C-alpha cells in the first residue's frame, strides 16, 4: 500500500516537476483588480511593460496572462478615474496577484488627446476640456455637438432649432470674428473635417449641418482645445478653439465583445408662443380699424368677408405639428489582442421631429483597426461611412411652422368651399405631403497611420486622411403646389473632397531621472475642393430629379446649351501647407514647460501675407509636489498653469485676395461672366494673442476638485466683409480691420457630496463668464456691418452683436401713442432710425451647467441644468406679431395694450397703419427695445434614470452588462421671454449673421422636448 502510495506521490511529483519545467519557460499571471473598497473593477486594461501583452478585466475583475518568461515583469493597470498602477511582479510559474487601485477623481493619469499626439492629464499645460462619449449619447440631440452644452467651461453651445438634423452655434471662449466664421475647427481622428453650415446654402430657412451625419455612438471622447498652448498647434485655424473628436478603438487585451444600444423616443416642442384665435384676431383688427378713425368693419386680408372669416378658427400650429418619434439602434464589436485591435460598428437612426414631414434618417458604419505586428511597427486604419437623409420642410421665413407663427391667420380656412386648398393667403397645410424635399449627406472619413519606432523612444508617423462629403439636395414642387401645368424640380449635387497628408516625428528623451524632454516635429499638407453645379440643375419635371431622370437630363441639356450649367471640379479649392513643432520638458513631475510653433501657408492668403507663424509657450507647476504642501491633508492636488501665444483664424472663402470673375447662370442662351469682389492682396488670417492662466485643485483627497481659469484673447486683423458703398454695385469686400477683446473666467467644480457603500452623490458645476468688446472697427460706423436679416450691429466699444435700437419709454396714457427716447435720452413721440443707440447684446454674461448624479446600488439618477445668464434676446418677429395690425398673427401678450385715455399699458394703441405712430415708416423698421428681452434662461436639459443590472444577474443572462434607462430632455425651461424658446440659433444667411445673430429670433422653430427610453447591453 505504502509503495503504491509512494509511487503515486512520486508520479504526481514527477508530473508536477514536468509541469513546472514547462512553466519555468512560460509562466503565467492571473490576477484580480479591485477598487479601494475591495470591489472588483471590470474593464481595466492591464499591460506588461516593454511587451505587446495586454489584457482586460472581466466582470469579476479578473485578468490572465500566460506564456510569460519567469522573472520580474512590470504590470501597468489603467482604468478611467483611477490612478494608473505600476507593480513589479515576480513571475515564477503560476503567479497570482491582487491589485488594488486608488480612485482618482482628478484623473491625472487620464489620457488627453492633443493635436498630433496625446498626454496624460498631468502633463497638460494648456486649457483642454474633455467630454467622454457617453455624455454625448445621453441626449437625443439633432447632432452630437449640441450635446456639449453645459459639459465644459468656456464652451457656449446654442442649440439650433427643433428641425431634424439642425446645427448648433458653438463658441469657445467668446467670439473673435465678425464676418469670417467664428466656429471652432473640428478634427476627427486627426483630420480637419468639413463642418461649414453654409455648404448647401440657406434654403427653406435651415442651414444644412454636415456634422449631423457623425454617429455619436462611435465617439470615444471629445477634447476641446481652448487656449494658445493647446490650439496653437493648429496655427492659423486654432483661434476659435479646436474640437477634437476621437472615435472608439479596440482595446488591447479585450476579449471579443458585442455592444448593443437601442433607444426610442417621443418629442414635442419645448415651448411655443401663443396667438390670438380667430375671434380674438378679428376683434383686434377691428379695434385697430376703429382706433384709426374708421367706421364700419375693417377690411380683411385673404380676400375674405367677415362672414367667411367668422366661420374659421384654424389652429395652424396644430396642423403642421405632431408628436415626434425617434428610433436609434447601434451595434458594435470590439476586440483586442497583442497584435490586432478591432472596433466595428453599425448604427441606424430615424428621428422624426415634431414638425410633420420632417425627419433625419442616418445609417453609419465604422471600422477602426490597429495592427501591431512587431514592437516597432504599428498601423492604424479608420474608416467611417455615414449616410444621413433629411426630409426637409420649410420653416421660419420660408413657411411651414413659420407661416403658422406669422401669416397663416386663424381666420383663413384650410380648404375653400369647393374642396380646393385656400390660396389667397398663407396655407402651410398645402405643402404637407406635396413638397418633396430631401437632402442626402453621405460622408466617408478614412485614415491610415503608419507608425515606426526604428530606435527606442523615437516614433515616426506617416498619416494620410480623407474626408469625402456628398450632399445631394433634391427639391420637387408638384404642379398643384406651384400653380402651373407641370411640376418643378431642382437638384444641387455637391461633393466636397478634403485630404491631409501628415508626417510627424516624436522623440522622448529622458536626460536623467528628473529631466525629461519630448520633441515633436511635423509637416502637413491639406487640400480641399468641391465638385458641383454652381446654380444647381432645375427645370420642369414630374418628380424629383433623382426619380425623374428623363427630366433631369433634359434640364442639364438645356442648361448646357445656354452655357449656364456651370459644372466645376475644383470649386472653392483651398490648400494649407504647414510645419509644426512642439517641445515638452518636465522636471520631477513637478514642473512642465511646453513650446509650440506652427507655420501655415495657405492659398487663401494674399501674396503679401502668404505665411503666418504661430508660436506659443506654456507651463505648469504642481505646487502640491513642493515640500511645504506635500504633507497637507487638505490639498491633494494644486496645479498652476499659464500660456501665452499667437493663434489664427482663417475661416473665410478662398480666392478673395484677387479680383475674380465668375460664371453664373446665363442670359439670352449665352454664358455670363461677371466680377465678384474687390481685390485685397494683403488679405490674411485673423490673429489672436491669447493669455491663459489656470489653477487646478483637488481637496480632501479629491472629494472636491476643479479648475479656475482666466483668459484674455485679443484678436487683431478681424475680417469684415462689408463697408463698400452700394453705388459701386457691391456691398462687400474682405478687409482685415477689426480688433476684438474676449476676456473671461471659467470655473469647474466637482464634488463628491456623499460617498457611502451603496449611495453616492456627486455634483459637477461649470460656469464661465465672458466679456466681449469690439476695440476697433477701423473707423467704420455701426451700420457698416450688419443690416440684412440680422438686427444687430458691430460698434466700437460694444460687444459683437450689439442690439442697436431705438429706446422705447412706454405708452402715453393720454393718446396711447408710443414714447421714444432720442439719441440724447430726451423723450420724443416721433420715431426715428437716427435715434438708434447700442442698448443690448446678444452674448450672455455667464453660461454653464450643473449636473447632479445620484447612485444607489445599480440605479443612477442624473440631472443637468444648463443656463445662460445676462445678455439680450431680440424678437424680430414680435415687431410684426405685437406691433401694427397687418396680415400677421398676433401674440397673446398684446392684451397689455392701451385702449382708452388713462390706460397705463405696455403696448401702444393698435393701428393698421405704421404711419399712425409718428415717424415710423413701416412695420419692419419698428426695431425698438419694445421687443428686446432679457435672455436669461435655465433649462432642465437632462434627467436620466438608469439601472445597471448587477454583475451576477447579468452573468446569468450570459451578458457582460445590461443597462436600462429613460431620459427626458428640455423638460423644463425657466425664462422671462414670453415668445417661445429662449435659446435661439436661427437660420443664418452667412457666417457674419451666425456670429452676430444668435439670440435674434425670427419665427425660429423651438427646440424639442423629448422623452427617450432605451437599453445598452454587451456580451
Amino acid at each position: 500500500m505504502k509503495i503504491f502510495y509512494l509511487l503515486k506521490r512520486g508520479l504526481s511529483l514527477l508530473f508536477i516537476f514536468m509541469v513546472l519545467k514547462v512553466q519555468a519557460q512560460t509562466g503565467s499571471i492571473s490576477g484580480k483588480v479591485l477598487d479601494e473598497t475591495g470591489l472588483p473593477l471590470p474593464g481595466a486594461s492591464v499591460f506588461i511593460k516593454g511587451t505587446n501583452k495586454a489584457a482586460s478585466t472581466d466582470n469579476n475583475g479578473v485578468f490572465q496572462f500566460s506564456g510569460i518568461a519567469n522573472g520580474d515583469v512590470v504590470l501597468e493597470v489603467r482604468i478611467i478615474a483611477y490612478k494608473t498602477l505600476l507593480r513589479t511582479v515576480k513571475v515564477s510559474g503560476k503567479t497570482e496577484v491582487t491589485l488594488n487601485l486608488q480612485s482618482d477623481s482628478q484623473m491625472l493619469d487620464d489620457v488627453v488627446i492633443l493635436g498630433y499626439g496625446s498626454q496624460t492629464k498631468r502633463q497638460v499645460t494648456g486649457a483642454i476640456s474633455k467630454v467622454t462619449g457617453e455624455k454625448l449619447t445621453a441626449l437625443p440631440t439633432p447632432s452630437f455637438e449640441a450635446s456639449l452644452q453645459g459639459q465644459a467651461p468656456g464652451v457656449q453651445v446654442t442649440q439650433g432649432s427643433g428641425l431634424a438634423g439642425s446645427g448648433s452655434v458653438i463658441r469657445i471662449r467668446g467670439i473673435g470674428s465678425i464676418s469670417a466664421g467664428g466656429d471652432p475647427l473640428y478634427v476627427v481622428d486627426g483630420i480637419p473635417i468639413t463642418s461649414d453650415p453654409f455648404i448647401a446654402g440657406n434654403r427653406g430657412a435651415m442651414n444644412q449641418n454636415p456634422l449631423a451625419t457623425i454617429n455619436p455612438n462611435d465617439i470615444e471622447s471629445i477634447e476641446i482645445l481652448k487656449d494658445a498652448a493647446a490650439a496653437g498647434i493648429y496655427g492659423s485655424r486654432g483661434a476659435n478653439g479646436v474640437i477634437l473628436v476621437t472615435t472608439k478603438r479596440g482595446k488591447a487585451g479585450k476579449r471579443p465583445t458585442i455592444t448593443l444600444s437601442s433607444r426610442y423616443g417621443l418629442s414635442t416642442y419645448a415651448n411655443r408662443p401663443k396667438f390670438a384665435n380667430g375671434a380674438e384676431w378679428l376683434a383686434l383688427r377691428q379695434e385697430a380699424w376703429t382706433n384709426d378713425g374708421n367706421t364700419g368693419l375693417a377690411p380683411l386680408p385673404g380676400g375674405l368677408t367677415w362672414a367667411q372669416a367668422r366661420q374659421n378658427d384654424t389652429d395652424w400650429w396644430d396642423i403642421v405639428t405632431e408628436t415626434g418619434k425617434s428610433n436609434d439602434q447601434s451595434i458594435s464589436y470590439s476586440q483586442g489582442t497583442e497584435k490586432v485591435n478591432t472596433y466595428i460598428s453599425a448604427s441606424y437612426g430615424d428621428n422624426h421631429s415634431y414638425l410633420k414631414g420632417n425627419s433625419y434618417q442616418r445609417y453609419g458604419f465604422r471600422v477602426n483597426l490597429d495592427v501591431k505586428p512587431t514592437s516597432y511597427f504599428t498601423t492604424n486604419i479608420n474608416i467611417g461611412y455615414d449616410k444621413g437623409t433629411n426630409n426637409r420642410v420649410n420653416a421660419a421665413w420660408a413657411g411651414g411652422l413659420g407661416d403658422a407663427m406669422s401669416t397663416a391667420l386663424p381666420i383663413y380656412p384650410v380648404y375653400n368651399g369647393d374642396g380646393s386648398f385656400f390660396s389667397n393667403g398663407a396655407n402651410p397645410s398645402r405643402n404637407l405631403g406635396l413638397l418633396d424635399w430631401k437632402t442626402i449627406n453621405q460622408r466617408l472619413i478614412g485614415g491610415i497611420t503608419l507608425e515606426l519606432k526604428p530606435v527606442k523612444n523615437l516614433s515616426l508617423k506617416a498619416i494620410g486622411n480623407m474626408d469625402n462629403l456628398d450632399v445631394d439636395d433634391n427639391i420637387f414642387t408638384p404642379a398643384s403646389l406651384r400653380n402651373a401645368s407641370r411640376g418643378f424640380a431642382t437638384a444641387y449635387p455637391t461633393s466636397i473632397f478634403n485630404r491631409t497628408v501628415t508626417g510627424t516625428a516624436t522623440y522622448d528623451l529622458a536626460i536623467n531621472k528628473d529631466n525629461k524632454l519630448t520633441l515633436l516635429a511635423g509637416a502637413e499638407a491639406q487640400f480641399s475642393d468641391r465638385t458641383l453645379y454652381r446654380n444647381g440643375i432645375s427645370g420642369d419635371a414630374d418628380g424629383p430629379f433623382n426619380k425623374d431622370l428623363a427630366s433631369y437630363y433634359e434640364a442639364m441639356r438645356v442648361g448646357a446649351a445656354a452655357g449656364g450649367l456651370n459644372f466645376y471640379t475644383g470649386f472653392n479649392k483651398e490648400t494649407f501647407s504647414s510645419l509644426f513643432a512642439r517641445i515638452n520638458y518636465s522636471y520631477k513631475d513637478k514642473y512642465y514647460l511646453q513650446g509650440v510653433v506652427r507655420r501655415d501657408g495657405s492659398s487663401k492668403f494674399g501674396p503679401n501675407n502668404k505665411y503666418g507663424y504661430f508660436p506659443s509657450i506654456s507651463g505648469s507647476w504642481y505646487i502640491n509636489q513642493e515640500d511645504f504642501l506635500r504633507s497637507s491633508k487638505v490639498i491633494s492636488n494644486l496645479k498652476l498653469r499659464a500660456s501665452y501665444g499667437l493663434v489664427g483664424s482663417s475661416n473665410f472663402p478662398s480666392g478673395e485676395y484677387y479680383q475674380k470673375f465668375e460664371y453664373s447662370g446665363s442670359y439670352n442662351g449665352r454664358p455670363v461672366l461677371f466680377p465678384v469682389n474687390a481685390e485685397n492682396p494683403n488679405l490674411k488670417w485673423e490673429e489672436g494673442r491669447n493669455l491663459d492662466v489656470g489653477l487646478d485643485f483637488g481637496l480632501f483627497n479629491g472629494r472636491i476638485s476643479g479648475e479656475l481659469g482666466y483668459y484674455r484673447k485679443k484678436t487683431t486683423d478681424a475680417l469684415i466683409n462689408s463697408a463698400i458703398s452700394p453705388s459701386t454695385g457691391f456691398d462687400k469686400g474682405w478687409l482685415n480691420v477689426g480688433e476684438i477683446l474676449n476676456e473671461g473666467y471659467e470655473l469647474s467644480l466637482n464634488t463628491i457630496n456623499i460617498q457611502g457603500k451603496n449611495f453616492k452623490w456627486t455634483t459637477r458645476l461649470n460656469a464661465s463668464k465672458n466679456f466681449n468688446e469690439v476695440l476697433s472697427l477701423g473707423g467704420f460706423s455701426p451700420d457698416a456691418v450688419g443690416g440684412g436679416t440680422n438686427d444687430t450691429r458691430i460698434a466700437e466699444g460694444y460687444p459683437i452683436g450689439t442690439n442697436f435700437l431705438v429706446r422705447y419709454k412706454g405708452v402715453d396714457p393720454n393718446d396711447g401713442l408710443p414714447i421714444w427716447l432720442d439719441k440724447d435720452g430726451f423723450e420724443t413721440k416721433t420715431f426715428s432710425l437716427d435715434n438708434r443707440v447700442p442698448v443690448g447684446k446678444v452674448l450672455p454674461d455667464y453660461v454653464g451647467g450643473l449636473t447632479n448624479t445620484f447612485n444607489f446600488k445599480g440605479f443612477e439618477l442624473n440631472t443637468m441644468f444648463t443656463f445662460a445668464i445676462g445678455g439680450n434676446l431680440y424678437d424680430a418677429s414680435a415687431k410684426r406679431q405685437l406691433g401694427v395690425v397687418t396680415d400677421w398673427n398676433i401674440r397673446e401678450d398684446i392684451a397689455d395694450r392701451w385702449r382708452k385715455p388713462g390706460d397705463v399699458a405696455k403696448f401702444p394703441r393698435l393701428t393698421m397703419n405704421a404711419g399712425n405712430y409718428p415717424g415710423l415708416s413701416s412695420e419692419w423698421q419698428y426695431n425698438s427695445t419694445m421687443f428686446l428681452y432679457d435672455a436669461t434662461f435655465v433649462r432642465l436639459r437632462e434627467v436620466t434614470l438608469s439601472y445597471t443590472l448587477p454583475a451576477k444577474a447579468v452573468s446569468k443572462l450570459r451578458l457582460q452588462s445590461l443597462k436600462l434607462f429613460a431620459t427626458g430632455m428640455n423638460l423644463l425651461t425657466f425664462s422671462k421671454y414670453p415668445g417661445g424658446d429662449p435659446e435661439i440659433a436661427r437660420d443664418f444667411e452667412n457666417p457674419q449673421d451666425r456670429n452676430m445673430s444668435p439670440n435674434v429670433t425670427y419665427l425660429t422653430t423651438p427646440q424639442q422636448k423629448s422623452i427617450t427610453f432605451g437599453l445598452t447591453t454587451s456580451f
Partner: protein
Amino acid sequence: MKIKYNNIWKSFIVLSVVAGFGTGCKKFLEATPVESINKSVALANEQGVVQEMNGAYQIVGGTNMFGGKIQVMGELLADQLDGSQLNGDFGEIYGRKTSVFGAYKNDMYKDIYQAIYRANIVLENLGVTSSLRDNLEGQALFVRALGHFEAVKLWAQPYGYSSDNSHLGVPLRTAASIVTQQRATVKQVYDQIIADLKIAEVRLPDENNGYATKWAAKALLAKVYFQMNDFANAYLYANQVIASNKFTLDTYASRFSETGCKESIFKITNSKGTYEPGGELRGQFRSDFNLPTLRFNSAFWATVNTATDTRKALYETVKYPGFVATKKYNSDRFEVPVLYLTDMKLIRAESAAETNTNLTIAIQDINDILSRAYGGTKSIPAGSSASLIRTNARFERSIEMAGEGNRISEIKRIGAKGENIDRRGASWNCNGLVLQFPQGEMATNASFVRNPEGGCN
C-alpha cells in the same frame, strides 16, 4: 501576418516627402478655386468681354431691375394701386416714406449699380476686343445710361425740380471703381445719360440678336428727353424709331408673352429653363391662381371700365369680389418689353402736341392706339387741337402702361411742368416721392447727402 517592412519604409518616405514637399512648394499654395478666374484671364480676349457684357444684361433683366422690381416700385409709388392692405416694405413704399433700410429697395439700388459696374468693366476693356468693339461699346453705354436713368428717376427729384437742375441726383459711376462717391447733380446725370446714348446710337447695329440696337438707344433717348420735357428732341428720336418701320403695333396679349411682341424695341429675352424673366411681376401681380398682393384701385378701374374699352379684358374683377387684379402677367413665362412702340407713339403724339407741330402725325398715333383699345369704336377727329391730343395721349398712356411702372414718371414729369396729376393728392415734389438711399451709402461715407424724409400727404 507577413509584412514587407521595406515597402512600408518606402511608402513612409514617399508620404513624408509629399508632406514636406507640399510645404516647400509654392505652386501648391497658389491653387485658386476654378470658378474664380483672375481678371487678367477673364478679360484676356473679346469673348471674355462679350460674356461680361452678357452679365450686365443678366442684371438688367433680373428681379431687381426689369424682371419686376422697377415696375413694382413705380406702381407702388404711383396712384393706380389699392394700397389699403399693403404692409412691410410695400406698405412703406406705397406710403411714400421710405427709410434708409428696406431690403426691397436697397437690393434694387445695388443691382442697378452692379449693372452699371459691369458695363463699365466692358468699357474699360475694349482694348482686347476686335470685330465687336463698337457693338460692345454701344451696348455698355446703353446699359450704363439705362441704369443711371432708372436710378435718377427714383432716388432724386425730377428734372425741372430746380430751374438749373443743380439739385442732387445720384452717384454717377463712369468707371469701375469701388471708392465711395458723392451724388452728382441731376443735370450732370442727365447730361451723362444723353452723352452715353448719343455714342451708343452711333456704335450699335441695326439688329443685334436680342441685345440693344441703335433703335433701342434712340428709343431710350426719346424717353429721356420726354422725361426732361424736352419735346423737340423727344419727338425727333421717337419719330426716328417709328419711322424705321421695324416695329409694328401688336395685340395686348402679345406684350407679355413667351413668343414675344412685334412692338419690342428693347426687351428682356426669355430662355426657357435657363433665364425666365418677370418672376417678380408674376409674383406680385399674377391673378389666375390666387388673389395677388398688388391690386388696382377703383378710381383706376373706373377709367378702364367703360363700355367699349377692350382693355377691360386685361383685368380680373370676378374671381375675387371687391378686388381688381391685372391679368397681364398670367402666364408661366414671358418676355419683358422695356422699350416698345406704343410708348414711342404716345411720346411722339404728346411731344407733337406740346410743341404744336406735326399734329396730323400725332392724331394718327393717337387714333392707332384708340382703335386698338376700343375695338375701332373711338377716335379723335382730324384737325384735333394740340390740347385734345395731349389729353388723349396722357389718358391712354395711363391705361396702356398700367402695371408697368410708368405712371410715377408721368406724375413727376408733368408735375415738373407745373401740373399736379397725382390722384392720391400729393404734390409731385413732396419728399416721400423720392426714395431714400440705402444706409450703406452713409455708413461708408459720412458726407453722403441723403434725401430728406417725410410723407407726402
